[in-house]
């Protein structure tokens, strides 16, 4: 049950985009078309879960025993960059279908703060391995939900009569603000 709550809290209540403001750059950059947003959403889920499991093992069995916790920023970012590069090469060689679907998004994910933030948060909250996997799934699922939702709305906004200076990014931010306001409503969900 508590695992389910952890998932729900990461997925909806503390949604990474609307409540924590992490990963906004790719969020606004890639949410103007529905199919790119779906591709990005699934790539993020895949990379976040994989890299947070790897960084969890690294932190628990290498950095902590060797008293090297102060190196975690450097180590985590290098590990993530390597993992992403590795996935890209692996897909290219062995699963070309997936590569043609997600390949272009993978390099972008290296500089996506979601991946690094989830690695840090898992360590900060002292999650065990199972909690790490569930939490990463929740957070990245929340990102995918947010980006697909936003893309759907932005495609409709394109045709709406909006004052010239507010077109493009500003109206996307106002939309995000309204969605975030709605997401605040989930705060009462666990109190029931």
């Amino acid at each position, binding site marked *: 049950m508590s695992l389910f709550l952890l998932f729900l809290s990461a997925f909806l209540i503390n949604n990474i985009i*609307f*409540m*924590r*403001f*992490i*990963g*906004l*750059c790719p969020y*606004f*950059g890639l949410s103007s078309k529905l199919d790119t947003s779906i591709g990005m959403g699934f790539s993020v889920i895949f990379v976040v879960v994989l890299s947070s499991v790897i960084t969890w093992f690294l932190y628990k069995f290498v950095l902590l025993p060797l008293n090297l916790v*102060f*190196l*975690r*920023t*450097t180590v985590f*970012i*290098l590990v993530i*960059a390597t993992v992403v590069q590795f996935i890209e090469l692996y897909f290219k060689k062995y699963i070309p279908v997936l590569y043609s679907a997600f390949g272009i998004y993978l390099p972008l994910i290296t*500089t*996506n*703060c979601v991946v*690094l*933030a989830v690695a*840090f*948060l898992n360590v*900060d909250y002292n999650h065990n391995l199972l909690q790490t996997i569930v939490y990463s799934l929740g957070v990245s699922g929340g990102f995918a939900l947010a980006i697909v939702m936003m893309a759907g709305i932005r495609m409709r906004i394109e045709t709406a009569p909006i*004052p*010239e*200076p*507010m077109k493009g*990014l*500003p*109206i*996307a*931010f*106002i939309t*995000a*603000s*309204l969605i*975030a*306001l709605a*997401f*605040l409503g989930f705060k009462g969900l666990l109190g029931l």
Partner: protein
Amino acid sequence: MKTFINALLDNNPVLVMALGLCSVLAVSTSAYNALGMGLAVIFILTFSNIIISSIRKVTPTNLRIPIFIIVISTFVTIVDYVMKGYFPALSKNLGVFVPLIVVNCIVFGKAEGYASKNTVIDSILDGLGSGLGYTLVMFFIASVREILGQGTWMSIPGGFPGFKVFGEGFMNYPVLMMILPPGGFLTIAFFMGLLKFYQMRRGK
């Protein structure tokens, strides 16, 4: 001066290029937080620019990105630990966003786009300038949000209570939404719109 204004308005990293948004929105709940974050970014940007531009001639092109990452993350770690030691309240407010400066597009973009091609002095100036532009935007957004959402300005956790901008009546019923996440999106949307409006008027 002209290039400074150009960097601040026409090429503003936050409002025009939409870079480094995460930290801008997350940290701008109070002007003090924004100032602390801004100073951290200025420090990291300037010093990583100095190192990267001074080793630019011996950096192999293929290995440049991992090298940049190591240089930047070293300075981020320094800032993180100094902040934890001397400004614990600020460090607690900024939370995970201090280590996340490592993936801040502004820092990385400047390392790749400017410091790796220019002299040390130029890189210092560029780091200071773009850091200042980032800080200024963050400070303005944070001021609007704090004044409307709390009724105070420049309040410091556990210290200075801040200037009271509105009377007591407002302080009891502030626009709470402004310091919550939706207010952040809304404020930056209007800042972007205003800047675009200004540019359109000037263009005519």
